[in-house]
């Protein structure tokens, strides 16, 4: 009943439909095709600029693969339907933008608490509120981290190009499944609508993971336990006779509600945090350019990492010892590596399309004697190589 992306029939279909090769496509399309390769066979969404092409591509392709596309009544319903489908064993995704992401925060918290794997694509647009609906931005960095209420961990991945988006969405699915957790995919309106070269690989080059299923009755009866010591409980699926109870309220290892015992809440919420913290190797990823001898470090992410790299290359040609650090998994922030790099430089620049968000994470890991400066731009137009280069020269 579950349609898995790694079944022979599905692999045959993927090969037939999406021939390996170079394509000229939109970032949004790259995300959708990446999701199909990752095994996503259920999509529920609500149209919103600049994310709609992801929904449109999924609506066109999923029925061919026997999968499910549903246009829900709103974003709240979209993430709810996804969570329902995830509990029958499907890999699920939705895509939205700022206002829709705000609506999804309620059930994003539910997915954290019930440890439901899903991938939520937020094509960041200029806010607050409706803002500039068609323009890209990077203003949802902390909404992804802290948008839903209460203590909770979150994993967020952010790509830097269409090609990168294809592979990173697959990685996002693998993290979600491996750690039984929701993963936020922080895309943006600029990459989403940029058409560029995307190479579609052969199915064999794509390694995909599925969640752990219970191996015996005992494991199935503890859907929120930790039988393997890695903090990740196997996930019993609905319809298998385990009588699994799932609730967003505080629950014991067996899934049954207990909101009165302080230890039960403490144990559950700390284990969910530990699950993410102790499995850093599953999701931690960053890129470095010229960091070996750098005296100045540029830290950037998502779409802005591209002009940042351009600026670093130009500055190097001018003899400025500057490096670039690009977290690809932005939450949890790669703090240890940031700390190491921060010790070796005298200035850190953080260009981003907001009024200073990732810079606050950087600040936590960089000593006070290092000059820390944001390069910020809002209004929907991306930062340019020249703008970042000017700042590099300014601290050189």
């Amino acid at each position, binding site marked *: *009943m*579950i349609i898995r992306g790694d079944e022979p029939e599905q692999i045959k279909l993927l090969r037939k439909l999406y021939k390996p090769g170079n394509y000229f496509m939109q970032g949004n399309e790259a995300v959708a095709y990446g999701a199909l390769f990752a095994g996503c066979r*259920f999509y*529920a969404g609500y149209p919103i600029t600049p994310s709609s092409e992801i929904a449109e591509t999924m609506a066109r392709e999923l*029925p*061919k693969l*026997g999968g*499910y596309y*549903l246009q*829900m*009544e*709103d974003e*709240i*319903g*979209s993430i*709810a*339907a*996804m*969570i*329902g*489908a*995830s*509990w*029958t*064993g*499907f890999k*699920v995704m939705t895509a939205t933008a700022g206002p829709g992401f705000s609506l999804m925060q*309620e*059930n994003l918290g*539910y997915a954290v608490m019930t440890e439901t794997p899903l991938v939520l694509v937020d094509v960041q647009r200029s806010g607050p509120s409706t803002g500039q609906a068609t323009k890209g931005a990077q203003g949802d960095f902390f909404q992804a981290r802290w948008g839903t209420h209460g203590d909770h961990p979150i994993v967020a991945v952010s790509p830097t190009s269409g090609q990168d988006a294809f592979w990173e969405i697959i990685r996002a699915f693998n993290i979600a499944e491996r750690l039984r957790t929701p993963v936020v995919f922080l895309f943006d309106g600029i990459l989403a609508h940029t058409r560029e070269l995307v190479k579609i690989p052969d199915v064999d080059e794509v390694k995909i993971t599925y969640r752990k299923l219970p191996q015996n009755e005992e494991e199935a009866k503890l859907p929120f336990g930790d039988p393997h010591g890695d903090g990740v409980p196997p996930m019993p699926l*609905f*319809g*298998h*006779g*385990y*009588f*699994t*109870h*799932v*609730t*967003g*309220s505080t629950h014991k290892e067996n899934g*049954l*509600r207990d909101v009165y015992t302080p230890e039960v809440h403490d144990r559950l919420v700390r284990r969910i945090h530990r699950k993410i913290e102790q499995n850093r190797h599953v999701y931690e990823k960053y890129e470095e350019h010229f960091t070996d001898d750098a005296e100045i470090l540029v830290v950037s992410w998502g779409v802005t990492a591209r002009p940042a790299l351009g600026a670093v290359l130009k500055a190097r040609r001018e003899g400025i010892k500057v490096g670039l650090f690009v977290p690809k998994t932005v939450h949890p922030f790669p703090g240890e590596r940031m700390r190491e790099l921060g010790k070796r430089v005298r200035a850190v620049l953080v260009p981003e399309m907001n009024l200073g968000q990732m810079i606050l994470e950087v600040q936590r890991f960089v000593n006070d004697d290092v000059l820390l400066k944001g390069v910020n731009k809002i209004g929907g137009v991306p930062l340019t190589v020249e703008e970042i280069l000017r700042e590099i020269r300014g601290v050189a």
Partner: protein
Amino acid sequence: MMYLKSAYEIRDKYLRKDMLPTIFCPGCGIGSVLQFTLRAIDDLGLNQDEIVWVSGIGCSSRVPGFVNFDGLHTTHGRALAFATGIKLTNPNLKIIAFMGDGDTAAIGGNHFIHAIRRNLDVTVILINNFTYGMTGGQVAPTTLKGLRGTTAPYGQFENPFDIAGLAVAAGANYVARWTVFNYLQGINSIKKALSKEGFTLVEFLSPCPVSFGRRNRMKTAPELIRWYQKITVPLAKAKKMPPEELEGKIVIGEFVDRDRPGLVREYQEYIKRAKRMMGWEQ
């Protein structure tokens, strides 16, 4: 015809013993409706492994935690949206949504009408007690005009929703409304609802003496039931009554019983159509 098993038999088979006693107050009607539902399941001989209970937030939404079935206790008002994902991806599962009136008609109103519009294959068991019981008796979108709640201490001034009527208008396949003392009609309606394709709804007027009755001079369940007897009119009788006589009354009975194709069947047809349009199938 049905074989009446003892309540103990039903309890032992279907309830999670370690979750008892329930949270329900003395005189609450939810336990009765739960029993009707379990008896209907038992009578139909449905497979316990193939039923999922979903719910939102509220007193009635706590029911999935008490029963021995797969269950998804979700966020306030969203049960039917969650159910959509479960049902579509595993059509073998029968979905029972146990919902309250605030959950259904206020915060979940949009999900409710759209689940019906899609004709999602689900059976909604609706507890309508005219109030928000769990939070202490605030007025609900079902509270009749003039009745009191903690947030309308001088009597409700808004119009109430007729949830069953709304479901009929939105296109549900089966809609019935009873009070908790319509024992046999209630069980039979649930049985019928569970046997049908598409969206089915059985609404129960259910006493909440503690949060609702107390504030409206009906401190006990018997007083509330006598009040129900006064305000309810069977459908056959209501049809012969002039509209002015029906003012302030609640009609009970079976409102609709039809067989429009459900969402699962429609989607399967859609996939076939897609494959035909791709030229893969004739």
